[in-house]
């Protein structure tokens, strides 16, 4: 028989306001095995933990139940407290009477009743708990960063500077990401390339960093400290070691009609290409879909003009398999597809563009060489309208329910840059709210209004109406003046919502990292563990976790790096002892459990058994506790009940069921 102590937390008034905590403590004394019960203001506090320790010692407790917040919050805290008092940490169970009770129920009587039942279930379970010992597993001292934008580069640099090996996997031919496409950055208006390129160069030159561009993560197995990842290095068709980056191949390539990804399809590039001048590595790839040689077998000009003999049409995809201790996801974002927003005439007029396209238009390396002009006729615009919140803050399935966060600031930036460079161009911004929290942000926006005379109108645009003469009639609301506005413009710029890179779904599935309804990766805790995934060993960097601007991204990238370093710095990790175990006498040796184990943790051995006096050799299941992660799939697959899960045993769960249904 266990000697159980029950500790009921008030959590200030969080629990005590709706649950009669002393009643819960009192009722617990009627449960089998309970020899001690008390309630206290804050069980998780130093004083609360001391109370638990004292009771364990004084009353010789063999198990404790803490009725408090979610075990996801403080299970570890109470386990440690118990351990310090000499109790096996796995003799602790939590009854979640805050998130699952006091916070969602209003009626005190009802909530108290429920809390008592939750307490009973936990007591019933702990009655069947057994002490467990955590095992150890090794840590591979190498990190993987998925995505080579500013988030991935910064994370990799920080980890590498701490002395650990880092690999960056980047899908496109060059690192640099979205930031490389930007012309200027807010709120200081530095040139984006000028601050990004040194970082790119630093990463590529760092002796601890290996960069795999034009590569994708193909398969992930293992667990925290010991992941095995297959990386597909796509055939570049150019030998990285031989190429000198002279660029002649790109000049001579006769196929020049592929849309340039870097310039958002606003102009074209050659079939053999580096995405942009400062690309790292400065080695082109052949776009096999566009290449004449690959399509028809004829051509081969690039190979002929390459003095280094680097062009290799026979090159094949290569799979690299590498082990990592930690993985950082930094897959970034894209703008949403605007097909469902045709009221803005994006698909009908070349002069309606997205803000990211405007970045390219304003950039000296862009399709217009930095001249602000209409893409339809090359004429200089006189009147530009910006529309905010295109697809953001939208509760239907056309757009995204969240605020994209960066648009208010970059629109102010664009407006300011245009007014600065082309003072005779009128700029109007239609906004719903201007959101500029951040250091020097609101000042920046006010400068756009006060110093540069940008015309901000509160109200959304209903329709952009292309006119026969090529102008665009913008029909919008002015909610403050209560009038409908018809404004003739030469160009319309849409502050298009951003969304996580669509590839992140696939990657999250491989990593078994959870993802929210908007495809942003979920944090382990929204406030307290914002750069960690709930899946151990997976860290989050940049917009893959939620919309953010460059300074925030860089800050988060550093934070993710620190978390990864904290993991890599350990030699050994404690493993979860809640693993499966097979009862040798009940095992049929049927292999069903082996078939459902996702970790290959179950093997079969011929073992000598003594079954009530009968000695025989039997084929029985053996669980490798280092590999088992404790999902329990095998326990249900096993018809005889031989396979059970420690910490969540059949009898423990049934005891909870019984306690709840009592």
């Amino acid at each position, binding site marked *: 028989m266990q000697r159980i102590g029950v500790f009921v937390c008030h959590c200030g008034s969080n629990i005590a306001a709706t649950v009669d905590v002393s009643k819960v403590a009192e009722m617990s004394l009627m449960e089998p095995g309970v020899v001690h019960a008390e309630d206290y203001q804050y069980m998780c506090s130093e004083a609360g933990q001391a109370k638990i320790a004292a009771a364990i010692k004084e009353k010789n407790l063999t198990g404790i139940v803490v009725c408090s917040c979610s075990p996801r919050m403080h299970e570890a805290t109470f386990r440690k407290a118990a351990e310090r008092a000499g109790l096996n940490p796995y003799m602790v169970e939590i009854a979640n009477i805050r998130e699952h009770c006091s916070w969602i129920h209003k009626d005190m009587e009802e909530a108290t009743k429920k809390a008592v039942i939750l307490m009973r279930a936990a007591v019933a379970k702990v009655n069947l708990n057994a002490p467990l010992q955590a095992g150890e597993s090794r840590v591979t001292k190498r990190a993987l960063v998925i995505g080579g934008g500013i988030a991935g580069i910064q994370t990799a640099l920080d980890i590498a500077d701490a002395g650990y090996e880092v690999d960056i996997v980047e899908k496109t031919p060059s690192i640099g990401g979205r930031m490389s496409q930007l012309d200027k950055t807010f709120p200081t208006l530095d040139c984006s390339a000028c601050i990004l390129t040194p970082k790119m160069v630093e990463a590529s030159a760092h002796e601890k960093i290996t960069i795999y561009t034009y590569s994708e993560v193909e398969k992930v197995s293992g667990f925290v400290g010991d992941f095995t990842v297959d990386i597909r290095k796509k055939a570049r068709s150019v030998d990285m070691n031989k190429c000198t980056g002279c660029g002649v191949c790109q000049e001579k390539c006769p196929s020049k009609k592929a849309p340039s990804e870097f310039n958002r399809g606003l102009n074209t590039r050659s079939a053999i290409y580096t995405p942009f001048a400062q690309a790292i590595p400065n080695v082109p790839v052949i776009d096999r879909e566009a290449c004449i040689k690959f399509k028809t077998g004829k051509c081969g000009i690039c190979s002929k003009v390459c003095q280094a003999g680097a062009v290799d049409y026979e090159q094949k995809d290569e799979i690299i398999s590498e082990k990592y201790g930690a993985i950082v996801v930094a897959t970034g974002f894209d703008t949403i597809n605007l097909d469902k927003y045709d009221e803005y005439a994006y698909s009908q007029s070349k002069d309606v563009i997205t803000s990211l396209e405007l970045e390219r238009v304003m950039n000296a390396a862009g399709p217009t060489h930095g001249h602000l002009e209409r893409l339809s006729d090359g004429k200089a615009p006189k009147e530009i309208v910006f529309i905010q919140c295109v697809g953001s803050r939208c*509760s239907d399935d056309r757009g995204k329910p969240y605020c994209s966060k960066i648009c208010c600031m970059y629109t102010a930036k664009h407006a300011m840059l245009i007014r600065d460079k082309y003072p005779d161009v009128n700029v109007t911004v239609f906004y719903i709210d201007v959101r500029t929290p951040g250091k020097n942000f609101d000042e920046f926006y006010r400068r756009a209004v006060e110093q540069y005379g940008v015309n901000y109108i509160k109200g*959304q645009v*209903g329709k952009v109406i292309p006119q026969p003469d090529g102008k665009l009639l913008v029909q919008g609301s002015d*909610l403050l003046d209560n009038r*409908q506005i018809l404004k003739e413009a030469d160009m319309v710029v849409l502050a298009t919502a951003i969304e996580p890179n669509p590839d992140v779904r696939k990657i999250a599935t491989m990593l078994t990292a959870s993802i929210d309804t908007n495809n942003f990766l979920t944090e382990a805790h929204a406030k307290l563990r914002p750069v960690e995934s709930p899946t151990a060993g997976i860290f989050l960097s940049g917009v893959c976790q939620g919309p953010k601007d460059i300074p925030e991204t860089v800050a988060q990238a550093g934070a993710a790096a620190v978390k990864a370093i904290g993991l890599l710095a350990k030699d050994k990790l404690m493993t979860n002892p809640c693993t499966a175990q097979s009862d040798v006498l009940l095992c049929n040796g049927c292999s069903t459990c082996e078939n459902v184990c996702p970790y290959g943790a179950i093997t079969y051995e011929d073992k000598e058994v003594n079954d009530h006096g009968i000695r025989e050799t039997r084929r029985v299941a053996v669980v490798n506790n280092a590999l088992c992660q404790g999902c329990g799939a095998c326990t249900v697959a096993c018809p005889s009940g031989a396979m059970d899960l420690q910490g969540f045993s059949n009898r423990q769960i049934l005891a909870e069921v019984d306690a709840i249904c009592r």
Partner: protein
Amino acid sequence: MSSEKKQAELIKEISGVNPLKCMKCGKCSASCPSYNEMDIKPHQFVSYVINEDIESLVNSKSLWKCLSCFACVERCPRDVKPGKLIDAARQVVVRQKDQNYLLADEIPELLDPELPQQLLVSAFRRYRR
């Protein structure tokens, strides 16, 4: 429940609209082809219902200027459907006794030889009990 509150609830029920979803972006008013004819603008309908000022709403000219073209419904980013609120408010009016907006004796003068039946039929449904 006050009668104003009751009517506000009725409008919400008939229209199936939750006015609290509105974020006041003004896209409805930006889309409305009848905007200039309206005294209460489409985006304001929502606050009249929230503030339970149904009296002003049902006496508003806007009720009869709305084309029911659903441009606002289609484009509303918050699924508020101001057009449906207006339809519902109009229903609240015509469901009351002697509140038909279209009177039987004014019909002959409105007719012309090419007028399609459906205009008359729909007007009856829109304007009369």
